[in-house]
């Protein structure tokens, strides 16, 4: 309890978000998405706060958070490029593109590269989701242009 009291703002925000979802434990995934959207990731304090408000155990929340690929336990990079690595994109060169992307973004200070399995843009692959924006027909050159655009933003 004392840990939560040390973070009045976070706890208060968790409380508000949970209330927006009717304080229903079944809305846990929606709540986790909402907290992560604000805080960037789900640290121990956020999990404690949500557990406290919903009156469910931290172990239960930990189990849920670690099951789903979307939830982050560490601060995210400033920009996230999610590259589709599923079959329809394989068919148009996503694996070669992924090799290029990994080399290009290795150790990059502000852009994180992640794999995703299908973005529903399967007729226009290789596809990627760049900070939430869907991209199509990516080539290594087009990928580099996206990277440069993100670097210019940061």
């Amino acid at each position: 309890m004392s840990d939560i009291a040390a973070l009045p703002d976070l706890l208060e925000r968790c409380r508000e978000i949970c209330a927006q979802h009717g304080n229903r434990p079944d809305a846990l995934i929606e709540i986790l998405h909402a907290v992560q959207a604000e805080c960037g990731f789900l640290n121990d304090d956020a999990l404690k706060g949500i557990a406290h408000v919903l009156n469910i155990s931290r172990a239960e929340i930990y189990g849920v958070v670690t099951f789903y690929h979307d939830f982050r336990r560490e601060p995210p990079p400033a920009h996230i490029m999610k590259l589709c690595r599923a079959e329809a994109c394989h068919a148009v060169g996503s694996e070669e593109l992924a090799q290029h992307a990994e080399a290009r973004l290795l150790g990059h200070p502000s852009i994180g590269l992640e794999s995703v399995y299908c973005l529903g843009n399967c007729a226009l692959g290789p596809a990627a989701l760049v900070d939430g924006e869907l991209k199509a027909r990516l080539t290594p050159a087009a990928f580099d242009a996206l990277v440069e655009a993100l670097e210019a933003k940061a």
Partner: protein
Amino acid sequence: MSAVRIFVPVDAAAQSVGANEVAAAIAREAAARGIAINLVRNGSRGMLWLEPLVEVETAAGRIAYGPVAADDVVSLFDAGFHLGGVHPLSLGLTEAIPSLAKQERLSFARCGVIDPLSLADYETHGGLAGLRCALAMQPQEVVAQITDSGLRGRGGAGFPTGIKWKTAFEQQAEQKYVCANADEGDSGTFADRMLMEGDPFALIEGMAIAGHAIGADKGYIYIRSEYPHAVATMRCAVEIWHAAALSDFRVEIRMGGGAYICGEESSMLDSIEGKRGQVRAKPPIPAISGLFGKPTVVNNVLTLAAVGDILAKGAAHYRDFGMGRSRGTQAFQLAGDVARGGLVEKAFGVTLRELVEDFGGGTRSGRPLRAVQAGGPLGAYIPASRLDIEMDYEALAAAGAMLGHGGIVLFNDSVDMAKQARFAFEFCAIESCGKCTPCRIGAVRGKEVMDKVIAGDDRESNLALVEDLCEIMTDGSLCAMGGLTPMPVLSALRHFPEDFGRE
């Protein structure tokens, strides 16, 4: 003079090739020229190689231009495109474009035509008629209509929808639910996404009809988080629907967490309950004990989207499309290395060759077609020499393949089928929920053994091991994830033995 209606799709695929930039350029240019336009952001017509496909409403009908880049907009106005003027990007009347004219659009009749979030537009184009018919009927009559239509689950399993609804209807419970499965995780599929972004009320109407039929006043739409555009559109649509007070049925949206397994209905139910998305053992089936232990109908988006049309036009109208025990139409999705990729709604019985060659136009790369994968990551690889198969649940099963959610992914001759087989195991290892051993451990071992095969390490005995492992996964897995992962693996091995070092 009223403003001319110009349509620029808001569909995520269209956005991915610049539709927003095109829409902005059109608005800017029209303002600069003092031309009054009414810019509508519609869904996609499904001809994705033509996106962004801009349409202009004229007295003769809607005229299409595409694919349009923002840089083309000035020359389009110069050519008077807002009055239907001729331009190098002219495609003529949209409805007459052969790829669209040859389709049989029932579930996707409105998609790309209407403003997705205009309930008035929806109603003008035939929406709500099904719900009104249903509400005037007894629940049993609605169930009978669905049974008579021959509609089967479009998520992949092909279970008769009428039987599922009847089972849920017969349960005595103070609360029942209707859940729409919009966790469209199969690579090569995007029909659910297109429908939710282009005609979201069709899904809600289908759910409301299902609710009336089984006695449920509450529904959930579970949408994958990889579809942020669809989530946003559906959230707006649900608000508009509720505000219009069309029936007592209430809908809640749940966004997934990036887990493929949540497309499996029982793990989806656990996920909606706020838990880890782990597969449940069956029985009991969800129609008897589903969400929160209550009778629940879980249907795919496309199943529910077909319902309104069936009620409005009668079961026979729908049943008259199709072949054998596969009635109605299927939204096929052409993907991968395809020249004319997109959505093709056709009656069952169309051949794979017609879809791949006539609609798809072969490969985008121009390289020879080598294989297609039908039915998503758990579907079979079919060699280019076997395209004369009719698309029908039973015919595909007899050929050792499956329809799944209707995805068809084209691969050219550069594909390494051993690597694709390895990927099937790898994907299963990443996405397994971990509840049953054959899937959780089998997938990891399968990937390791395929690595040895690919490295040329004692190939024959390792391939024997792969086959053995596939048998265990098929027979022993709790759900289709582990149970069907062998399908792409074994079909690749059977049809392309040379890629595995076999004669």
